[in-house]
């Protein structure tokens, strides 16, 4: 067995709906798939103490994040009978209303795709060294904290 190549998950800037559509369309030739589960993270215009979030600026310790994701990917494929799994996380400044995370899992029957998708989102948020800086309309900022 050869070790699989480490995949990049990072994209610069927001994830467009056209990119998502293209990813979905590419799976129409995989006729063993019965269900796709997709999670999209969208930047929220939270109001915090009277200040409105206008964007989140994402940075990452990229090499370490990709290594972690590689390990998580292997564990998820071990645990669920998936046909495929695609993960994209934005870096840089993503405006409120834009998509910053795209997790996409597919399987023959629906449950594995759904459960793997949820688990990947949880693990990505907890285990990948990525940081979001919430930029307020007035130019100030605070560091995002995941719950």
């Amino acid at each position, binding site marked *: 067995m050869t070790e699989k190549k480490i995949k990049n998950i990072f994209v610069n800037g927001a994830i467009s709906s056209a990119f998502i559509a293209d990813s979905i369309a590419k799976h129409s030739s995989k006729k063993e798939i019965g269900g796709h589960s997709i999670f999209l*993270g969208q930047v929220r215009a939270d109001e915090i103490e009277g200040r409105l979030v206008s964007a989140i600026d*994402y*940075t*990452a*310790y990229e*090499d*370490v*994040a990709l*290594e*972690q994701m590689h390990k998580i990917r292997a564990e998820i494929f071990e645990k669920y009978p998936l046909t495929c799994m695609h993960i994209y*996380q934005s870096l840089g400044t993503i405006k409120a209303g834009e998509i*910053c*995370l795209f997790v996409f899992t597919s399987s023959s029957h629906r449950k594995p795709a759904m459960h793997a998708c949820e688990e990947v*989102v949880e693990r*990505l*948020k*907890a*285990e*990948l*060294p*990525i*940081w*979001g*800086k919430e930029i307020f309309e007035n130019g100030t900022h605070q*560091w*995002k*904290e*995941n719950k």
Partner: protein
Amino acid sequence: MEIEVISFGKIAELITTKKLILDFILDTDDFKKYLEETYPELNNIKYKLAVDKQIVQTNCKLKDGSVVAIMPPFSGG
């Protein structure tokens, strides 16, 4: 011993040092003690270290030229 320091997120606003020449520091526990004495604000931030791109789970040795990353809680996604 020379340590290369990378810091992220809110810790990058606090620790801007890129290189540290440290004696009497053998492992990551020593290093954390040193950090928290030098930057008392770190006592109020949960953080993790990575040494040479390996996230530190338990205390581990440092060597000359190690790259130590100081990482506040992750908030991707």
